[in-house]
C-alpha cells in the first residue's frame, strides 16, 4: 500500500500542484471549534487524548482550547505542515490530527506554531521556508529532543493523495539520513528529510486506528 502510494505520488503531483498554487482564503482552513477539538483528540487513543492540551486554529494562529494534564498536545495540522515541496501544501481540505508527546510538543510543535504564524501573516511558501530555516539556524527555535514523537491514529485524517492513509506514529529526529533508521523499501519505517527545519521525520504505520478498529486497507 505504502509503496503504491509513493509510486502514484509522482503522477498525481503535477495535477495537484496546479490545483493548489497558493493559499486559499483563510476561512477555508478554519473549522467549527468543537468539531476541531474532537478531531484533534481523534489523533490519539482516548487514554492519551482525553488528558492532553488541545490546540485549535484561529484567525491569528493556534490557541489553547483545553488545558490538559499529561503533557501531550493534540491539534489538527493543516496542509502547510506538509513538506515544502508537497503539491498539497495549500490544500484547504487537508487535515492531519496529531497528538505530540511532551518532547514533541517542546520541539517539533514549536516549529509548527511558528510556521503557522508566518502563513497567517500572508508569507509565501518560499518566504516561510526561508524564515524557518534562518530561525532554526540561529537557534531561535529548538532542535528536536530525544524521543520527540506523535500519534496520528485518526480515521478522519485527509489529503487528496493518500485519503486517510494508515494510522501511524511519527518520530522527529535531528537531521539525519532516513537510512540511519533503515527507512527503505520493505521496511516498516518511512522517512524524509525536512532540510529547512533541520530535522528528519519518520513514520511507522501501526495496526489500529485510535478508536481501536483495525486498519484493514489503509483507506
Amino acid at each position, binding site marked *: 500500500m505504502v509503496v503504491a502510494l509513493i509510486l502514484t505520488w509522482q503522477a498525481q503531483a503535477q495535477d495537484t500542484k496546479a490545483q493548489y498554487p497558493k493559499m486559499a482564503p483563510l476561512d477555508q482552513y478554519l473549522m467549527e471549534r468543537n468539531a476541531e477539538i474532537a478531531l484533534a483528540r481523534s489523533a*490519539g*487513543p*482516548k*487514554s*492519551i487524548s482525553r488528558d492532553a492540551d488541545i490546540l485549535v486554529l484561529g484567525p491569528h494562529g493556534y490557541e489553547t482550547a483545553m488545558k490538559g494534564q*499529561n*503533557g*501531550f498536545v493534540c491539534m489538527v495540522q493543516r496542509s502547510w505542515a506538509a513538506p515544502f515541496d508537497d503539491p498539497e501544501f495549500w490544500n484547504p481540505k487537508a487535515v492531519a490530527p496529531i*497528538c505530540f*508527546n*511532551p*518532547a514533541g510538543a517542546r520541539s517539533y510543535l514549536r516549529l509548527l506554531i511558528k510556521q503557522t504564524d508566518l502563513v497567517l501573516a500572508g508569507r509565501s511558501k518560499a518566504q516561510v521556508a526561508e524564515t524557518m530555516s534562518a530561525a532554526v539556524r540561529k537557534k531561535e527555535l529548538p532542535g528536536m529532543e*530525544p*524521543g520527540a*514523537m506523535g*500519534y496520528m*491514529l485518526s480515521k478522519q485524517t485527509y489529503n487528496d493523495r493518500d485519503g486517510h492513509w494508515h*494510522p501511524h*506514529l511519527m518520530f522527529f*529526529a*535531528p537531521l*539525519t539520513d532516513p*537510512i*540511519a*533508521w*533503515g527507512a*527503505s*523499501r*520493505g*521496511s*516498516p*519505517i518511512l522517512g524524509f528529510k525536512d532540510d529547512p527545519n533541520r530535522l528528519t521525520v519518520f513514520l*511507522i*504505520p*501501526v*495496526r*489500529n486506528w*485510535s478508536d*481501536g478498529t483495525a486498519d484493514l486497507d489503509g483507506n
Partner: protein
Amino acid sequence: MNRKTLVTIAFGSFALVVALALTWQAQAQDSKTPYPSMAPLDQYLMDRNAEITMARSAAPESISRDAEVMVLGPHGYETAVKGKNGFVCVVERAWTSPIDSPEFWNPKGRAPVCYNAPAARFKVSLLIKTTELVLAGRTKTQIFDALTASIDKKELPALEVSAMCYMMSKQAYLSDGDPHWHPHLMFIVPLTEAASWGAGSPGSPVINAFVNTPERHTVFLVPVGNWSDGTPYVAGN
C-alpha cells in the same frame, strides 16, 4: 547497586519480549525448573550459515543484506560478514534475559535482531561482554556484578540518540510460551517514564517493555504489521 539494577542492565531483546508475554506470569511457574543452569554449550550453538541467515531475518532484506552479521562461536560472538550500512544483525541467546527470567538458560532461545549504528555501538558491546562472561562459566550473579562494574566504570559505550532495532523474524524463539511473538521495532532511549510516549495506555500501539534504573534507559516496542519476509502477522500463527 541493588539486584533490580543488576537485572535491568543486561536486558536483551529476549527479555523484553519474554517479559511482555501476557501469559508470562502463568508460565513462569511451570518454566522455573526446566532451565536451572547453563546447558552444554553446543546446545546454544548453530550451524554458521544457518545463524547468518537467521540473523539477517531480523530485518527486511533491504537492510540486512548490507549489515554486518555476527555469529556465536565457542569463544564468543565474532563477525561472520562485514557490513557497509552501519547495521549489525545478530542472533541473541537467552542469557540477555533478566536475571530472574525462568528462561535465562533456555538453550532453545534465539532472538534475531538488527541494530542500527547508534544502537549497535552500545548493545553489541554489551552482548559481547555478557557472552564472554557466560562462556567463561560465570554464574548469573557474577555476570550481572561484572556488567554493573563495567557500566559504572564506563568501560562500555554510552547509549546514543536514535538507537533502535528491528525484530521482525518469523524464526525467532523468544520464549517457550510465545516463541515468535510479533514482528516489532524497538527504541532505546535515555531513561524516561513510559507515559512520556503514551506507552501502555489503553489503545496505544507503543509498549513499554522495560524501564531501567535511573542511570540507565527505557525501551519502547512498536509492533508492526509484517514479518521481514513481507508476509503479514496473523494473530495466533
